[in-house]
């Protein structure tokens, strides 16, 4: 399956991209996705091991199972207001 990954602010600058697509085995969790991203090396390797993540606009835990077509966003510490 494939999920869309969004990156923002410091994460975006770290990897030099605002989005990417990750191919994952069926049943993969957020944790598996993050490991796949970090395995890409370069700036990707410097992403946090357990960043905050949103799946389809909702905050989600690292054990959340992903589905094909999900939009997964890595959320750096927020600073609105």
């Amino acid at each position, binding site marked *: 399956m494939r999920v869309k990954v*969004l990156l*923002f*602010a*410091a994460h975006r*600058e770290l990897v030099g991209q605002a989005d990417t697509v990750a191919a994952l085995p069926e049943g993969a969790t957020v944790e598996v996705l993050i490991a796949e991203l970090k395995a890409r090396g370069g700036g990707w390797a410097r992403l946090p091991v357990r960043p*905050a993540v*949103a*799946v*389809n*606009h*909702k*905050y*989600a*835990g690292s*054990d*959340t*199972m992903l589905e094909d077509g999900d939009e997964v*966003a890595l*959320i*750096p*510490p*927020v*600073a*609105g*207001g």
Partner: protein
Amino acid sequence: MIWSDVTTDPIDPGTVLKRVGAPGDGAAALFVGMVRNSNEGRPVGGMEYEGYRDMARDQLAAIAAEAAQQADSDRVAVVHRLGELAIGEVSVAIAVSSPHRAEAFRAARYVIEEIKKRLPIWKRERYLDGEEVWLEGHLPVTGIEGTR
């Protein structure tokens, strides 16, 4: 009516205030956040707000609904701006009206505190000396909403 938005357009706080109010309301509270010209003593020239806009809209609507429930009032209006802001420009405006003042104050305060805790928005501060940094933010430690 509960109203919320995340926008790149300039915010007029008076217009946000006008979105609340009802004949049974005796009090309205408005909070306005602005970009200030210094942070921890360091001169600031401007601020860039980056946001995960679709999610921020959902989150802001949820925060407004929670505030409305707490204030026992459906008169809550909140808007957060994204993009490049100059000193003094409004980044966020929150209005709540209610029969009584305590609830209006409390709900307005709730909205700004929750925004800072969990709205997926990031600030890049541009200092007058030319440096720019992403401001240290809060880990979004809201209850995890979706584990399926």
